[in-house]
């Protein structure tokens, strides 16, 4: 029993769940228990989006040093506009709109990969440059107008089953799928191998470029889906709807126990980290602190978590 507990505590993701629990408790102590369930429910609903982007960013970051997708926010913004425009407020076009968002996201993934592979640009700069271009496409395509989602789609993104958002349940299932993809498929193994040592991976017969390509594609696709869902949940597309998910996705990946030096990933931790960050925000908003203090506390908590968890042993 004791050893089980110790093994559990040695898992990097446990800390994020503990942190989430802690801030939640602090918030309900402040409200004397008022709204405890509502906080969890709202937290789950909002964590969905950061978890989806977190999964995307996790696969990319796991590819190894320098790999990161900075184009996610622009991707999400464009996809939200594409989805809403294609759906055009009509329930019958929901599937088509989702498909369009997916295609837009995948297209961006392909673009990113081509920049990285064909032009040999470091991913961090390639995706940054791509995001500028995507923003321009978004501006000229969406003209910054907020288009409303069809009522059915809007309903779908907010419906709850016994207080638990349906979207959250769906995303849990989705993340389970991604955990299997990461640990039990050739693709997942390839990502982990490349993240540790791309040259060794190549010499061990892994299709390095195909794996990298698919990873950026995956990240793009998830960004596209996330954009459509966000537009549904927030009742309208907007180009900067995804802005906060750049820092959030990176923070999630790291707090969730994935190694930023690549080769080691953790899907379970994403949910812990997602809930932790949302509930932290809930707590601070509940306390009614000013924006400045909220930023400072958020920052210190991120540093605190990572410093307390400590780094992996130097390679």
């Amino acid at each position: 029993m004791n050893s089980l507990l110790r093994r559990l505590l040695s898992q990097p993701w446990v800390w994020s769940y503990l942190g989430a629990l802690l801030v939640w408790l602090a918030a309900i102590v402040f409200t004397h228990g008022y709204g405890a369930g509502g906080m969890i429910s709202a937290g789950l609903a909002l964590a969905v989006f950061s978890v989806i982007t977190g999964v995307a960013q996790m696969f990319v970051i796991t590819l190894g040093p320098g790999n990161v997708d900075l184009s996610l926010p622009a991707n999400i913004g464009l996809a939200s506009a594409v989805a809403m425009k294609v759906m055009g407020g009509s329930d019958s076009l929901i599937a088509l709109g989702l498909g369009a968002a997916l295609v837009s996201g995948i297209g961006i993934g392909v673009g990113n990969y081509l920049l990285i592979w064909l032009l040999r640009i470091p991913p961090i700069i390639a995706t940054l440059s791509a995001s500028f271009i995507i923003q321009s496409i978004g501006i000229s395509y969406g003209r910054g107008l907020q288009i409303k989602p069809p009522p059915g789609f809007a309903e779908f993104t907010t419906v709850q089953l016994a207080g638990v958002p349906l979207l959250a349940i769906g995303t849990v299932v989705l993340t389970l799928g991604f955990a299997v993809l990461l640990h039990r498929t050739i693709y997942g193994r390839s990502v982990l191998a490349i993240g540790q040592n791309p040259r060794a991976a190549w010499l061990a017969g892994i299709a390095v470029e195909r794996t990298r390509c698919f990873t950026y594609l995956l990240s793009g696709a998830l960004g596209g889906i996330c954009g459509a869902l966000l537009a549904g949940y927030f009742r309208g597309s907007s180009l900067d709807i995804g802005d906060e998910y750049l820092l959030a996705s990176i923070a999630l990946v790291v707090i969730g126990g994935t190694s930023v030096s690549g080769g080691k990933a953790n899907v379970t931790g994403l949910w812990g980290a997602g809930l932790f960050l949302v509930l932290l925000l809930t707590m601070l908003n509940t306390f009614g602190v000013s924006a400045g203090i909220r930023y400072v506390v958020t920052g210190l908590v991120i540093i605190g978590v990572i410093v307390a968890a400590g780094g992996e042993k130097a390679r």
Partner: protein
Amino acid sequence: MTSLAGASTLRAVVAEVNTPRRILRAILPALSLALVVAGIAWFNPRAISYFGINLMLNLGIPVVLATIAQMFVITVNELDLSIGNFVSFVGCVAAIWLRENPVLGVVILIGCIGLYALMGAVIYLRNVPSIVVTLGMLFVWQGLAVLVLPRPGGKAPAWLHDIMNLRTPYVPFPIVAAVVIAAVVHFGIMQSSYGAILRGSGGNPNAIGRAGWSLLRTKVVMFLLAGIFGVLSGLSLIGLTTSADANIGKGYTLLSIAGVILGGGEFVGGRVSPIGAVIGALTLTLAGTLLNFMRISPDWQVGAEGAILIIVLAARALINRAGPGVLSHK
């Protein structure tokens, strides 16, 4: 004996084959800067004047300083995501306290530099990724900036304003400043004997450690330097804008990273170039100007900036092309 001499000379020749590529690569940043300047001259000839260069480049100085700060951090294989918000915070401190209460202002700024050094120490001692620590610091600096300056305002001390608006004879001040910065940093990090150790600690930390140098010290020194140049960047920015804003330097984070890479630096392995970084930062500054002169439709101005980044880096990739594909991952 002669036979052996022949063989080894031959091998030496083989090893030196890639040298011209290295030279080409080294001058690429300068080449791209020249191209951008040529473009500006083409679209707006009168911009190439003492007055014009002053106008186009003076806002490049804080970018150059922030890029140098980022370069120090990248040299030791780390990344600073907080530099832009740090510059903002420094700006707020400068506009609020440096004029009214210089002692307090200076103490706070020195404290900030100390915090940067501490950040380096924490990253080394706890062996945590800098991306996360600086991501946290990003929020901390942003929060502090909003707390210090809840609404835009404040005023730069007169001396700061005077320095940044210096009228140097013949050569515009921004160019003088860029050359001085490049020369000082180049000497400090590329030419000094301890500079070699600092760069080496990015190239092969174990080797530096085994030779008896303190890796904690190299990391702390590099973050300390980053803090100092971040402060200089904030001060110069406020000297130019005369007034502060809690979000004033936010964009410098990505700009500084792009500047280092554009200048020929690499994310890992301690391969950086201060002169290249300065040129990279100036190129980015001028790229915006060029786009402005080209009258690109407002919708596409953002995208065009991305395209410029891509073109310059693609040119570098073309030069490196000779290297074998996957093997270059090593």
